[in-house]
């Protein structure tokens, strides 16, 4: 993912939409997604000279900002967006179950199956051990297998 030589504007132009979609999958809200992506790029802008891998940095920042925002809303009983409904029964039922998973398990699944990250990359983004990612992944799949059957 190294984009050595890219300007900030190039990273912004090439990554913004993809990161918005990632943030939307995590938060279920365009408004929150836009806010988190803008915040992540603002932080990247401030650290531009010291960040060696801008794309990875901003992806990690978006993910963690979104997780923090979801946790904060749950903790403060702020309004969380309702799960996105697309009208396809299989997808809606799957996503409804994913939405009920604990926040860390959801994050692991989204990073594994939407962002296509390896377990070690997921661990890096979530700042935890690979073993933690593996166990969260296993528990999430087990629960979904049970609930969706």
């Amino acid at each position, binding site marked *: 993912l190294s984009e050595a030589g890219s300007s900030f504007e190039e990273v912004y132009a090439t990554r913004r939409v993809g990161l918005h979609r990632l943030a939307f999958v995590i938060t279920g809200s365009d408004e929150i997604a836009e806010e988190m992506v803008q915040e992540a790029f603002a932080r990247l802008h401030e650290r531009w000279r010291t960040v060696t891998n801008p794309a990875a940095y901003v992806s990690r920042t978006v993910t963690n900002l979104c997780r923090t925002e979801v946790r904060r809303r749950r903790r403060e009983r702020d309004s969380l967006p309702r799960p996105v409904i697309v009208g*396809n029964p299989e997808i809606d039922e799957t996503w409804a179950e994913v939405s009920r998973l604990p926040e860390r398990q959801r994050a692991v699944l989204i990073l594994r199956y939407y962002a296509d990250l390896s377990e070690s990359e997921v661990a890096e983004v979530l700042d935890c051990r690979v073993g933690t990612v593996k166990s969260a992944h296993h528990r999430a799949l087990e629960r979904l297998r049970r609930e969706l059957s």
Partner: protein
Amino acid sequence: MIDDTEVQQRLRRSMEAIAQQATPPRSSFWHEPLASPVHRDRRLVAFVSAAVVVTVVAAALVWVIRPSTPRVTTTDTRPSAQALSAHIELPLATMVAGSSETGYLVIENDTGAPLHLKDTSGLGCVPKWRVVLRNAKVPQQVAFPSDCSASPGPSTVATGQTKLPFTLEAAYQLCSPSGQPHGVLTPTCVRNRQEGGLSPAPPLPAGLYEATFSSNIAHFVSVAAVPVRVVTPTSSAISPAKVPGSSTSADATVALKRFLAQHPNAVVHSTPVTYTNKLEIAVVGIAPDPNHRAIYVLDLTNGTASPLATLTLPSPTYAFVQTPPITTADLTGDGLPDFLVRFLAADNAPGVVVSADSGTWTLVPQNSDPTSVYIGRDPTISNGHLDSTRNDCIPTCAQGHSTIIVWHYDRQHNTMVAQ
């Protein structure tokens, strides 16, 4: 019991579908934050507009609304999002293609001071703005002349609420008078509308659009787009000979009965309908075995039943709903019948739309994935449109809150799209 592989595949499909529901802001370039964090405005919205004089010159323009007397506090010097807001008001959410309606841009200025609007063209013009319809298929850019003419907006917005009227047209913004269309954005002009019409440009194709605000001025708040459905005036004016479900010949009915008698695995069917003046058809649901389902489109012309198309349904395998039977309506707006076939799922009756609008008989998908054909929940045909319910599944799908959603046909992509 499904296995991990199936769960993983569902997860990938679900997340891709969910991500497609996102609507990233159109702004595609970065606004560098100001040096002081208190001045950083993360809500700046940039609009890309095209300036047209003789040629169209794309220009990125920013709208700046500044209070004449900025409120100075200990933490901020700009109007907050709460102090300044603007939104679009439209009397009609559905417009007939080619028609127009008057809407309002409503600005709530609670900053405590009038706002002096400036444009950034450098010419000292008062700012200009417009609201136009656009979508992914017709991504119309707003064109502002580069001089100071042409429908300027106000230069000052008083405190409190200000309602600025505008005319919204369900027509293209540009057209080519030469009769040589240069693509989607510049269709051929309609000559008979030039004298008395609102615009020489042809009407927009039917579909779901957004009424979108654009300007050569910039402000601290974004103006949310408003969804508008454009319908064709002819979509409900099908000639009697082609009305879905219109009476067919006795031979067609006999041919269908004969086919059903010969195919005991045919579990549900439509009534015979006149498809064109010369073609009578019916749609039949076939369950050859517990794990497969198919839909036949039968040609019943001349008293014989012969398959026009065999459409295999993707997994998961659902049982056909037999009551009500397969229903018929023009769901794609081409003036020809389409069919809704419904199934029994765990807690609702999803359906598929069978249509030949794309040129061949297909199960109309919801996106580029041809297997995304099942429309949930409980689709029905109402007043010629396809409606279904949406369930928030909170706390469970059985106890969740349902709302009605309307589907329309995206002819460019040959997909059914939820409004």
